[in-house]
């Protein structure tokens, strides 16, 4: 991913702000009391990963598929899917033949969708 590496960050990964940012990205609410715990656990885990930086991995390609595999391409034929009730009754947010969600309140929630 050519542009994914925006330079080595200097921030200590256990930084509480980083934990909060990650929790926000992952849409998981972390109680204020828990932030420190996650921060120190993450720090410990990431310290453990420090050894990764030592070994020489130059000239090695990252694995994408572990065994070479041709791509399955299916013919463009319609197959029956789920009946409406089977699809919607597993949700607790069913309203008529649609699912209902709260509207975006914070405009920042509205994602930069590709479509």
């Amino acid at each position: 991913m050519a542009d994914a590496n925006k330079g080595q960050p200097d921030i200590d990964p256990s930084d509480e702000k980083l934990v909060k940012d990650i929790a926000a990205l992952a849409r998981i609410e972390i109680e204020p009391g828990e932030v420190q715990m996650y921060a120190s656990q993450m720090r410990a885990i990431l310290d453990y990963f420090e050894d990764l930086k030592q070994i020489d991995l130059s000239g090695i390609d990252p694995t994408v598929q572990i065994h070479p595999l041709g791509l399955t391409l299916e013919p463009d034929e319609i197959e029956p899917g789920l009946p409406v009730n089977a699809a919607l009754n597993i949700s607790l947010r069913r309203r008529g033949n649609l699912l209902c969600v709260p509207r975006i309140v914070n405009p920042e929630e509205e994602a930069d969708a590709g479509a």
Partner: protein
Amino acid sequence: MHSDLAYKTIHELWDLMNNGLLDPQDILESCRENNALWEPEIHAFREHYFSDVNVKASLQFLPSGFLGGIPFAHKDNISAKGFGTYCCSKILDGYVPPYDAHATELLLAAGGLMIGRSNMDEFGMGSSTEFSAFGPTRNPWDTSKVPGGSSGGSAAAVASGQAVFATGTDTGGSVRQPAAFCNLVGLRPTYGRVSRYGLVAFASSLDQIGPICRDVHDCALVFSIIAGHDPRDSTSNPTLLPDLLETLDDGIEDLTVGFLVDDLGDAVDAEIREKMDEWVGFFSVKSKGVLPIDLGSLKYALSGYYIIAPSEASSNLARFDGIRYGPTIETDDLGELYKTTRAGGFGPEVKRRIMIGTFALSSGYYDAYYLRAQKIRTRLKAKFDEAFKEVDIIICPTSPEPPFPLASKVDDPLKMYASDYYVIPQALAGVPALSIPGGFTKNGLPIGLQITGRAFDEATILRAGKAFEREHDYISKRPKPPADKGGEN
């Protein structure tokens, strides 16, 4: 004792049924007796169907196949149409899939009777089944100890005679380690052998469904049923499966056996090191010869796994937002819907891994973590390929330690991760590995012997396992039922 029936193997029961000496009802009854005896103590199932009249009735209509009516415990993360599939997580509490996983279809078509949903570490994340949102499972061999994880419920169900076999899933050892902790046979297939369609994804490039059985023959049988190409899974491998039963008894005289040299030192229990020496002795006599195999420091593999798996998990678990399935909350704010549903639905280990994974995939860190971990993987696979030029199989312990006490590691993630040292490399390299009963500690706790083979060469590791099994009678041992434990020493 009637409950003895449940301790027979599939092939023994099949022979009896075939000869008219046994009815599937008898086997079910035997399992039910063990259920009454064991389950209050060990909690192998999140839910079971022993009291369900429909289950007993369904025995009348089972398709005839090798598994004609034989009860099995089905891990709670493999979709079964019409049956709760919660992955033992609160975020899927109440979720009943409208479709079957490929493996479920195959097992039911072969006549298997799904007798319950095995308890597991939530979403497969854990090595002790203590991270289930529905309470831990206890090891039938010593109920103060863990049964291993994440397929601990499946292993415990079979070990306690509540099921004749079980399904598990292995992402970083979760079939093999519980099998080892419960004196059972567990197989992690080559990646792509068993379809993942319907398996709730944890780490897409590592997950595989595998059998947990009483003996190697059963394992080969169940694996033959569930393996095979499935066009609904694009990572499913079309490599043909040979007839595994045909070569099962061929012995190991033609094999060169590698034994793993590790850098764990004292971290491996002394009794397990002793057992390893015994195993090497056995193989050196029975096979063409043994060689030490050094795959380099597998600590790198551990690090690599604990980046790749959480990264893929953080992605696969993004879909759990309370909208299309699972519990949801009342709110006017969409942001709150996501954050609160997920915070309340995921347990602490799952949250931890999602955080690590989200971090490792984010720009600025992706190269240093995820990308590097995938390079470690390439390097490790190359090392296995090198090793398999010299040897046909590699043996090592399944776990560096015997089953450990409950609550001894839950607060220390790193400690928990280290117990996966021997089972993670095979997952990363995509190669198959079999854990078989390898002996017991002085205190009667099971020790597992792990046999690793080349990709797509389950046939060789199975016959090697069978050769060992034939000469060592570990599989006939049984854990003492709870009632007995009270009285005896």
